[in-house]
């Protein structure tokens, strides 16, 4: 092992300091972003399938593409607002106001849960089921897959919210958990906007 003097600040990295491990750049956010590109491609595939179905596969007599707009519009607002509240949480974090940060995190998670509730409500009031026709199946597959993402996202927000009660867990310099969940949450939000435009407005 090394005989070089070890100062207190280096204490945590001494075990393998001679292996210059301390110099690794932190690439975790890069990894998360790449993963989201991949995830986005899954949605892109779904959207492409949906658009092709709509273009070339007529629905049976009596079925329609029309959907109620009220509930999903409220849902859209909830999700967009939650992106802003999350952004606010990050701002508070950068200013080292952890209490406020946690508050905004909780608000974001609750907005996500409210979105899921709205989605459920919509599912139960729709006039068609999963296998009614091609549009119905595509509708449930797309919103369901997106809803799965929201569920995961809300859970992850709650996890970082819980972790953040520990002082020093997230600092303005080092807050990978929160940053990653934030990126993911914005991603889910953007996907919803595309989905909303394609499924409800088109």
């Amino acid at each position, binding site marked *: 092992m090394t005989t*070089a003097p070890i100062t207190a600040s280096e204490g945590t990295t001494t075990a393998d300091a001679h292996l*210059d491990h301390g110099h690794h750049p932190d690439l975790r956010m*890069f990894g998360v972003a790449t993963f989201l590109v*991949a995830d986005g*491609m899954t949605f*892109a595939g779904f959207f492409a399938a949906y658009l092709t179905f709509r273009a070339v596969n007529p629905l*049976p007599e009596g079925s329609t593409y029309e959907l109620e707009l009220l509930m999903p519009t409220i849902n859209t607002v909830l999700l967009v607002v939650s992106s802003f509240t999350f952004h606010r949480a990050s701002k508070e974090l950068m200013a080292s106001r952890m209490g406020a940060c946690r508050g905004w995190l909780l608000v974001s998670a609750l907005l996500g849960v409210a979105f899921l509730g709205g989605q459920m409500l919509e599912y139960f009031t729709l006039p068609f089921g999963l296998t009614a026709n*091609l549009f119905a*199946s595509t509708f449930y597959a797309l919103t369901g897959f997106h809803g799965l993402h929201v569920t995961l996202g809300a859970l992850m927000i709650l996890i970082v919210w819980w972790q953040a009660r520990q002082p020093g867990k997230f600092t303005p310099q080092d807050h990978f958990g929160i940053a990653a969940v934030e990126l993911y949450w914005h991603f889910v939000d953007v996907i919803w906007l595309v989905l909303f435009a394609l499924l409800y407005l088109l």
Partner: protein
Amino acid sequence: MTASLTPIAEPTPAPSLQPSGWLRYFSFSLDHKVIGLQYIVCGFLFYFVGGALAGVIRTELATPISDFVSREVYNQVLTLHGTVMIFLWIVPVVNGGFGNYLIPFYVGARDMAFPRLNAVAFWMIPPSGLLLISSYFVHGGAAQSGWTAYPPLSLTTPATGQILWILSVLLLGGSSIFGGINFIATIVKFRQPGLKMMMLPMYCWAMLGTSILVVLATPVLAGTLILLSLDIVAHTGFFNPGLGGNVVVYQHLFWFYSHPAVYIMVLPAFGLVSEILPVHARKPLFGYVTMVYSIMAIVILGLIVWAHHMFTSGTPPWMRLFFTIATAFIAVPTGIKFFNWIATLWRGRLALTTAMLFSCAFIIQFVFGGITGVALAQVPFDVHVHDTYFVVAHFHYIVYGGTVFVIFASIYHWYPKFTGRMLNEQLGHLHLLLTVIGFNLCFGPQHWLGLNGMPRRVAEYDPAFTFVNQLSSVGALMMAISTLPFLINVIYSALGGPMAGNNPWRALTPEWLTSSPPPVENWRGAPPLVTEPYGYGHNGSPIDLQTASGRDLWSTEP
């Protein structure tokens, strides 16, 4: 901190919970070299499974009637063969295997960017492979719809096997995506200071291109298979014409992944060959910059040519035209790479090692497969030979004659680094001879079969084709036999081969600038900064590879 701490004789490995010794190859090791070898060895095990399945296919096809196995079993064997070979052998070995072993060396790092993700990605493979193979024993047997799983066939064959097939492919796709993310981060962001992208060995560029394809295309396959499984389990009708669905959409989505997948299988092989040729020819890799651009061109074009697999699926004329032209364009960057390899060999001081010979066989066979590929891209020709043995011959010339030959070349080239011992060259030459003859005998005649109208994926055929099919089966038998000298060589040499020393090929790339096998952290002391990985054949004043013309390189004495 590094500089003052580096000169240490024998660094004690950092205390860790990682097992050492041979046990580490069975553990959740985070060492990229261990993971790389895990991928390679695991891949070879599945290769033998897939090979045995191919043996069943060729035995059945030795006679025109269905006598060796039942038709249902034949379909299961065919499906398993394709899936095992693609998803459990080629893709994991040329990407995860050599990629994990070599890329950290090439970027001057001590490990991949995300070691833990790396280990997770590897350990997803053996369970999904076993899941796939075990589906043979469930009720109704394994999937019967081929590796393409086209509906409505995949909706009407026994469901359990098909669902297990989907699960297994989803897991393997996930593993592949995790690997791709890791490679992109490592190559783009993890290089040692001072190492520019244009200084990287070509394999890095190949893996970067491949990983971009993995990240962009594999998720689409995953989404498609999720929809397919809904069709099977929940009786939705996405791809079921009986329920108002559309099978052609499946084909589009499937090939949006699976055409790039053929480049996921072959681009890394391009990279590996580009490492092997300069070393054994003692010449710089010719046309480094054009190589880089052609890889990236292949990545882009590879994403927009998928429907050349669907010319007979009722694609409208404008689509046929577009996809024919786009596909023909891919031949341009591919041709550039081909000529660069030839130019690398040109007037080099060739060492006819087994690694070199396998690489040369690759070049010839790959070109042949490329030519039949361009022919297949022409609609008037393709409508005649689509779904015949001509297509089977085409892609085996590329996947086997190309990629598998490169895997063998790479084993002969890097085995000394992996184990510290040399392989026996005589046995290697024997292996090469048997493989080249067996391979061409097996797949060459299949072009004729296809041109004369023998459909693929059938257990029975017109007796007029018997003789040529038997030729092909003899070739397959020779291929099976050819693995024996290889296996003997690999096992015997591991125990008693001559010691290799650090750098038996006198190569310049960084993995050779350390002991064989390398220490846990790759180099004792600081990683070497290799700015010119192919600086062979010139003394003293190196040519500037970026600006040199072909004449400069050729006129330099080797």
